[in-house]
Every structure is written in structure tokens, then in C-alpha cells.
């Protein structure tokens, strides 16, 4: 009896998550009505936290400075790079009109303390340098872009209307992979970000729990100011996933986070499985660290977004638990094959294939539908095949999860930065 309860409880994880995913898919298809306020001219400040980014920084800066946005500036925060990152930033300063590009160089031992610390130093530099003195913090929009981030040219025009609503604290744009045609692994990462943005983030607008990402994160300066600590500590925390942390704290402060589906930032996909798992282990570890946000969510966040955020923050636990299931599947199928050979007749019943397929791959059809809306040239059949592969690709989170847990238990906190190619 107990055995049966436990076996069915394991299936219940998949059913629960499947129901959640389906609900969010339905919500994501609804049209969103935005609150409006008066249109105001705003200053856009692009922050690029860089550690050894000479390979990609030039292209990103060129795209930012070519944006058709009237009032903007870019700040490169060089986090004690060993390479030519600072030289590339200086060249961009020379090339552009005065005041458009700025460079902040951090030096060891105060540098390389993580992305959050670098971004905090950037905001401090802008304030202390008087660069924001003439602006109302409510009309200054700070955008965090990765050094390899290539923003859509219309990004400011797409994001700006969201800030007409004075309650909007932050707006996250979509994330794509600009090298998605290079390999299947890159294509699957692109699919992962499209599905996350177009289903999960879009649906969370209705729930009020939109998360912030590390790339393409637009925030109102007044909202960031509301997160300053009593000791003057900056808005970003030292968590490995400072973006997740910031998004939750904005909601807890009463701000509304938005997700903009009309513009995206394209970044470089990781082309090597080992490096990809390493990157995801860092995100997973950061997610585990974010468990510290639970008391804040319980106290300060309204019930509906709080329930979603609690599910979101607890998803690493579910990932670790469900990682045992494909392992059990493999052991059982392997055993059945061996047993069938020994017995001389098949021991596998059709329910071993049909049940797991329905539970595992039904979502693939929804994901294929969503992805073809972005990649119209792909074709539905190819997208369906790709999304089957995507389901299996998701299993990298199991390896990343256990690695991340191990790093947390052994007290490892270093910034496992993903190298550019």
C-alpha cells in the first residue's frame, strides 16, 4: 500500500507540473491590457558589467550606440579584466559624441565580487559623477545588458510605453540566441528562452509575478532606489542569480514587473555541453540561495503572485526529485530488456511506452506551436521533432541541479563565468 502511494506520488509531480505548465500556456495566449499614464521623455542608461569580454563587447556597444533612442548613455563596468575590455570601451568613447559612452574601471581586491556588486558600483559611479543629477529618478530607465547582448534596434520604443504606467518598476524583454543556426545545442537554448518568455513570463503578467533576467532587464531608477539598504547597499544582491532576487524584491516593494514580447536581446548560446551544464549549475545554485526570499514573499507579496513565486523558488527541489524518475525509467527498461532476453519472450507491456510518452511529450506539441510563432521558416513538423529533442535537452537541468547542490553544500561561491567563443 505504502509502496503504491509513493509510486503514484512520484507521478503526481509530473501531473502537477504539467497542469501548471498548461495553465500558464492558456494564460499566455490572452491579450494583455496595460495601464497608461502620460508620455514623458526618459533617459535610458545601459549598464554592461564586463569581465574579460573583449571578444563580444565591441559589437554590443556598436549596437547600443546606434539605437534610435534620443536620450541615452552606456556605462561599461570593467570588473578588473585581464584582456582588452577597457581598451574597447575607450575606443567607443572616442568614436561617439561626448557623454554617450562611459567607462568605470574596477580594480582588485575590490573587483570580481560578482555581477551584482559590479552593477551596484555602476549606479554609484553614475550618481557620484553627477551624470544623473538633472533627471527625475522616475524618468530614468536603467537597462542591464550582458556584454554579448545585442539589443533589437526598436527596443526603447517597445519598452518605453510600459513605463507610462507609474507602477511599473521593471520590464524584462525576450532573450534569443544570435548563433542559433550554429548547432542543435544552440537552437535548443534559443527554444528554451523563447518558451520561457512567451509562455511562462507572458502568463506571469496576469499573476503579477514576472521575473527579471540577467540580460535585457529594464528598471526604473526610482524602483531601484526603493531597494537601497539602510547602510546604502546597492539594489543588486550578491546572489549568484541577482536578477531573480531583484525581481522578487521589486514585487515585494509594491512595484509591477512587466514582460515585453515585442523586443528581444540576443546573446551567445553556449556550444559545449559541459560548459552549458556548468552555466546552469551556477543558475541552479543561485536559485537555491534565493530560498532566503521566502519570508519576504510570505510577509510582503500579495497572495496570488506569492503562490506562484513560492512554486518558482521551490522548482529546484522538484527538479532534484524528478531527476530520479528518468533514472528509474532507464533501470526498469534496461532490466526488462535483459529479462526479456532471459525469458525468451517480451516482458514489456505497451503501457510502459504509451503512458510515459503521454506524460513526457504532450508538452512538446505546445512548445513546437509557440516556437514556430517566432521561427516561421522552421516548419511545424521540424519544430515538433525539435521540441521532442527539447524535452530530453531539459534533462541537463538534472546534472546541473546536483552539481549546483553539491557546490552549495561544499560552500563554493565563486562566479563560474561562462567563457565567450
Amino acid at each position, binding site marked *: 500500500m505504502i509502496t503504491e502511494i509513493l509510486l503514484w506520488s512520484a507521478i503526481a*509531480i509530473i501531473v502537477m507540473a504539467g*497542469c501548471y505548465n498548461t495553465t500558464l500556456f492558456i494564460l499566455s495566449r490572452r491579450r494583455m491590457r496595460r495601464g497608461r499614464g502620460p508620455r514623458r521623455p526618459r533617459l535610458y542608461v545601459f549598464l554592461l558589467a564586463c569581465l574579460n569580454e573583449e571578444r563580444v563587447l565591441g559589437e554590443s556597444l556598436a549596437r547600443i550606440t546606434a539605437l534610435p533612442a534620443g536620450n541615452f548613455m552606456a556605462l561599461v563596468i570593467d570588473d578588473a579584466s585581464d584582456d582588452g575590455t577597457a581598451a574597447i570601451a575607450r575606443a567607443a568613447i572616442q568614436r561617439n559624441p561626448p557623454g554617450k559612452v562611459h567607462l568605470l574601471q574596477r580594480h582588485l581586491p575590490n573587483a570580481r565580487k560578482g555581477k551584482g556588486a559590479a552593477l551596484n558600483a555602476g549606479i554609484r559611479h553614475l550618481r557620484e559623477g553627477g551624470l544623473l543629477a538633472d533627471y527625475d529618478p522616475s524618468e530614468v530607465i536603467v537597462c542591464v545588458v550582458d556584454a554579448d547582448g545585442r539589443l533589437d534596434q526598436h527596443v526603447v520604443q517597445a519598452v518605453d510605453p510600459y513605463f507610462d504606467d507609474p507602477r511599473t518598476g521593471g520590464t524584462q524583454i525576450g532573450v534569443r540566441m544570435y548563433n542559433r543556426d550554429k548547432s542543435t545545442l544552440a537552437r535548443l537554448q534559443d527554444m528554451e528562452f523563447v518558451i520561457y518568455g512567451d509562455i511562462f513570463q507572458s502568463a506571469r503578467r496576469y499573476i503579477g509575478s514576472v521575473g527579471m533576467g540577467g540580460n535585457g532587464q529594464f528598471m526604473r531608477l526610482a524602483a531601484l532606489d526603493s531597494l537601497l539598504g539602510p547602510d546604502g547597499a546597492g539594489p543588486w544582491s550578491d546572489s549568484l542569480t541577482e536578477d531573480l532576487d531583484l525581481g522578487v524584491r521589486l514585487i515585494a516593494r509594491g512595484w509591477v514587473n512587466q514582460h515585453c514580447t515585442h523586443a528581444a536581446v540576443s546573446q551567445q548560446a553556449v556550444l559545449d555541453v559541459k560548459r552549458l551544464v556548468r552555466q546552469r549549475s551556477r543558475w541552479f545554485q543561485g536559485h537555491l540561495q534565493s530560498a532566503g526570499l521566502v519570508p519576504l514573499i510570505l510577509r510582503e507579496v500579495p497572495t496570488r503572485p506569492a503562490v506562484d513565486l513560492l512554486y518558482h523558488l521551490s522548482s529546484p527541489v522538484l527538479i532534484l526529485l524528478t531527476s530520479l524518475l528518468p*533514472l*528509474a525509467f532507464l533501470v526498469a527498461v534496461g*532490466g526488462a530488456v535483459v529479462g526479456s532476453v532471459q525469458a525468451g519472450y517480451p516482458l514489456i507491456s505497451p503501457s510502459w511506452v504509451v503512458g510515459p510518452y503521454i506524460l513526457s511529450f504532450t508538452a512538446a506539441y505546445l512548445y513546437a506551436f509557440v516556437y514556430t510563432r517566432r521561427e516561421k521558416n522552421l516548419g511545424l513538423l521540424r519544430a515538433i521533432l525539435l521540441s521532442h529533442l527539447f524535452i530530453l535537452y*531539459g534533462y541537463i537541468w538534472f546534472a546541473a541541479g546536483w552539481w549546483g547542490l553539491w557546490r552549495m553544500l561544499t560552500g563554493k561561491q565563486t562566479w563560474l563565468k561562462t567563457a565567450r567563443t
Partner: protein
Amino acid sequence: MYGKPVLGTVLPTAGLMAAPQVIPGLPYAEGLQEAAGAGFLLYVATAIAMLSLKLWFHLRNSGEPS
């Protein structure tokens, strides 16, 4: 977290309950799935406790004069 889509798409061993016990390795497969199930029951218990706490905060805050 970007890994969330994977949660609803895991390959389970749905036929374990009806599988003939002569299959080698089956107890290990069952053990793994039972461990996941036990973990999930603990997760549900924790979730209920947290949601109760959230409800308590909600009721307390709504009762406060504005």
C-alpha cells in the same frame, strides 16, 4: 527558472505498478521512484505549511486599520 518546462515532461516509469517482479533491477527502479514520491509528499507538506502561513499573514494584514 529556465528549467521549469522540464518539470512537466519527465519520463516516469508509469508501468512499475503492473510490472512482473521477475524483471532484474526492478526493485532499484521502484526504490528510485519511491524516493521521489516520498520527497514529493514532504514537499506538499511544506507547501501546505507555507500557504497556511501566507493565509495567516494575509488575514492579519487585512485586519489592520489603514
